[in-house]
Each structure stands twice: as structure tokens, then as C-alpha cells.
């Protein structure tokens, strides 16, 4: 983990939100999809806590974060930052997704805003020749990931709650048709979805083998180094610090 100042290179609309591209070669070179970056917001001591982001794009020199519109003061401050600004970043935090080398068909499942954090993994998997299917859900078409952001080889399924794009309904409705195809599953969503995913895997495969599905556990980190104990949750059979053990876990451990 390092602390570095990242240069804000560009602000772009990303769906209904804003994405910031940050140049920080030393940090970007270490980042694995699914890991977190903690960014300081505000000028003084308020807000005091860093904001946690899972990058939505990573290359060798830079990474991008997504700012959805919400009521948070720290993210509101970041939305006002202009190109040329420097942002204090701590990262990478924790363990990211591990591309299952022996799996040929990878199913990536993204629930709501968290779906965007799968993009760096989708890019890498496709570039390495895996067959990748991405399935996401969103409230409406405006929040979905534009197909143009995906590698051409990726099969893309969408569900929207209002039916404005793809299948009407939630991501879980897509599982029965997609799961039997997959050798491995990578997910970024909430706990409700993970429980549904666990049940669907069981239904499709008799037993969900360990190592079959990885899932991102999203939460805000304080220190990111294991010192403060703020991130301890009941997971993997004990109360563990997500910044050390995660934030990417085996789905079996998240559900246990």
C-alpha cells in the first residue's frame, strides 16, 4: 500500500454519474480489479474520513473512479474537483479478484452501481482470451453501463427495474439461464443478491464449490491497514477485518 497524490486528468459523464480519471503511475501499477483506493476529500478536517472507491478502469498509469449522485459531502466535494487538481490517495487496499486461470467461461454479475467496479476485470479477462459474459441490473437505462465501454467479445445482458433496457426486473432473474454456462463467477453487488446467487448456484450445480464464485464486499474503510478494526464483519466463519481478508471473498465465505 502506498500514499500518493493523484493528478485529476479528466472528468467524464459515465452513465448518470461522473467518472474521474486519476493519474498515479505508482498506485495504478499495483492495483488489481476489486481492490480499494481511499481518497481524502475536503480541504481541512471535514470530512475527516477518506472515501472508499473500487476503480472502474485501471491502466498502467492511471485509474478511474465513479461518483454516483448521492448526499455524501465527501463525494460532493470530489464532484467539484477540476482537471489539474491533486487528490491524496491511499491504496491499494486488500485483496482483489483473482482471474481463475483454468476457467474458460467467466460470468461477471454486477448489481446496481457496483456493476461498474467489474469493468477492469471484464477488460482483463477478455484481453486474456476468456469467454466473458457480463450481466448487470440498474433502475433504468440511464444507470446502465454503455455497451460501447465493453470489449467487443463480451456478451452483455441487462435487466432494468423500469424495463427501459434489457429484461424488466432484477439481475437475479437472469441467473437460471446464465449460471449453467459459467466455469467461474465474479460478482459485485449487495448481500441480498449474494444470498440469491448462492441459492441459484446450489440449484444449478448441486454444490457451490469453493473457488467457483468470488464476490466483492463493499464497505467504507478507515485505515485500510488492519489497525483500526472499523471494518470487522462476520465473514468466513469469524469476525474479520474486510480490509485485510477482502474486500474480495469467496462467495462461500461471505455466505457462511
Amino acid at each position, binding site marked *: *500500500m*502506498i*500514499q500518493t497524490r493523484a493528478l485529476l486528468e479528466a472528468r467524464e459523464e459515465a452513465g448518470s454519474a461522473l467518472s474521474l480519471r486519476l493519474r498515479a503511475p505508482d498506485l495504478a501499477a499495483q492495483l488489481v480489479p476489486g481492490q480499494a483506493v481511499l481518497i*481524502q476529500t475536503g480541504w*481541512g*478536517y*471535514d*470530512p*475527516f*474520513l*477518506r472515501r472508499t472507491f473500487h476503480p472502474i478502469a485501471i491502466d498502467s498509469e492511471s485509474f478511474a473512479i465513479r461518483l454516483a449522485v448521492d448526499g455524501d459531502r465527501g463525494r460532493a466535494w470530489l464532484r467539484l474537483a477540476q482537471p489539474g487538481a491533486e487528490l*491524496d490517495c*491511499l491504496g491499494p487496499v486488500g485483496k482483489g479478484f483473482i482471474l481463475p486461470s483454468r476457467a474458460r467461461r467467466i460470468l461477471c454479475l454486477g448489481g446496481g452501481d457496483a456493476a461498474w467496479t467489474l469493468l477492469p476485470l471484464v477488460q482483463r479477462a477478455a484481453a486474456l482470451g476468456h469467454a466473458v459474459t457480463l450481466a448487470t441490473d440498474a433502475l433504468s437505462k440511464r444507470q446502465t453501463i454503455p455497451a460501447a465501454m465493453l470489449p467487443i467479445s463480451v456478451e452483455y445482458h441487462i435487466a432494468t427495474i423500469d424495463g427501459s433496457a434489457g429484461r424488466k426486473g432484477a439481475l437475479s432473474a437472469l441467473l437460471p439461464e446464465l449460471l449453467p454456462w459459467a466455469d467461474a463467477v465474479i460478482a459485485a453487488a449487495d448481500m441480498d443478491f449474494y444470498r440469491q446467487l448462492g441459492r441459484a448456484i446450489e440449484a444449478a450445480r448441486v454444490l457451490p464449490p469453493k473457488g467457483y464464485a468470488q464476490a466483492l464486499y463493499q*464497505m*467504507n474503510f*478507515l*485505515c*485500510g*491497514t*488492519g*489497525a*483500526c*478494526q*472499523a*471494518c*470487522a*464483519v*462476520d465473514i468466513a466463519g469469524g*469476525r474479520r477485518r474486510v480490509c485485510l481478508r477482502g474486500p474480495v471473498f469467496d462467495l462461500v465465505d461471505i455466505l457462511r
Partner: protein
Amino acid sequence: MINLAPHNKLGLIIDSPLIAGSGAAGYGAAWPPGLHAEDFGLIITAPISATPRKGKAQPRLAEIPAGFLLETGDHNPGLRRVLASHVKTWRKLKTPVALSLVGGEPGDRAWMAAHLEDVEDVIAGVELPIPETVNLGEAGALIAAVRRVTPLPILARLPLTRAAYLAKTCVVAGADALIVGAPPPAAYPVDGDWVEAPLGGPIVLPFTLRALRQLRDMSLDAPVIAAGGVQTLDDALLCLELGAMAVQIRSLAWRDPAAAHRLALNIRSFMDAEDN
């Protein structure tokens, strides 16, 4: 060099007035990037109890203006496992380490202190957080019970809002130094639940300064350590001016390790300049 336990024959000599306190680096191994044990004169561990504690379920953290509330419920693996996994690390560190012993059952802390006999050569002292609600008799008894079983320097961590009330009793009972201290508890809602915990972050500094001013006028025969809200060299110097012999940081190390490292260098330079 500063002696934080001048009346204890073991003494507690630190080479910098900056202390990594209240588990800023966990048990002395969870260092944020760019920050090292050598940046500090003393490391005080995260809380250690006699038996393992699972701590509090989520939510544990709430952000408040200029600070946060963090309620871990003293989550820790218990004395035995802490010693088994960390004594080797402490032995290698050039910076002295004090263990923060938290109570549960009456007598727990004395039991733990007595069990440190085998590692007394590795440990520089024990910190005893004094609970917010104790009266003078209870505070004195708590310190005295530990004093009876260990020669190690005792650092009594006093609640900031009751430091003046408790200070003299703790010194008489055997505390070698006083840490001021433990910030006042507060509550804040998070996601439909509540976090109830001591304040953390820069918002605490005025409470620390008030306690230091009160203790300065009491002519106590024990060094005072300032703890709570220190973020900058100016904050640290203010505490030293008010009579503190050392200054503890925690949230600064978590939020901005680079700034904590700068503070460590600057405070050393300042002390060197003072000495010359």
C-alpha cells in the same frame, strides 16, 4: 531523552515525545505506508483483554463533523494470543512498546499484568484505561491492584472530562504517568442504527487542551501525556506548552500517514533545537 516513569526504577525512556497510541499501529505490526516504529518514542498497543473479545457487530464507524466515532467493543484476540503472535515483533523493534490492558471481570487487569512477568524484558509498560464511570475509590483500587503485581511502569489513561478529578488518586495509587486521555463518549446514527463511542479525530483537541490546563495547575508528581485530537506540529507544541511531556497520535496515522511521518520528523527537529 524523556523519562515517562521517573519514579519507577525501570524507568520508561523515550527518544521522541511522539507516541503511537491506542492501537494506531494495532499491536505494533499494522503500519500505514510510510510510517514506521522509529517515527515514535513509544508504541501503545490496541486494547488487550484477558480473554478473546469478538467486539461489536457493525456498524462500528460513524463520521461526524471534524471527526468520527469508532466503537470496536475492544475487539481483540485476548492476552495469550496477542503475546504468542507479537512478542517476536516487539523484541525486534527499537521503539519501546506498552500494552493497553482493558478490564472485563474485576481483577482481569491485575491477572494480565501478573502474566507479563516472562516478557517484562520486552515490554516497556502497561496502559490502563480508566473507565468513564468509576469513582475515586474504584480508580485507585484498579491502579493499586496492578501496581501490586508488576514493576512495569503504569500509564493511567484518564477520561478527558474527569481527568482533574481522578489524576491525584491515580498517582497516589501507583500510576507512573497519566495519559489525558480518553475522549468523551457520544452517539451518532448510521444506516438506521447507532454508533455509541468516544469521539475521535481533531474534534477532540479542545477537550484535551482543557484537561491539560486543569492538570497543569495541580502540581502532580507524574508526567502527563496528551492524547486526543493532535493532527499538526502546532497542536503538539500547544500540548507540550501546557505541560505534557509527550503527545500521542492515532487518527492522524490512520487518515494521513504522510502527515504523521512529517509530524514525527518535525517534532524531533523541534526537540533537538530546544536541547541545543
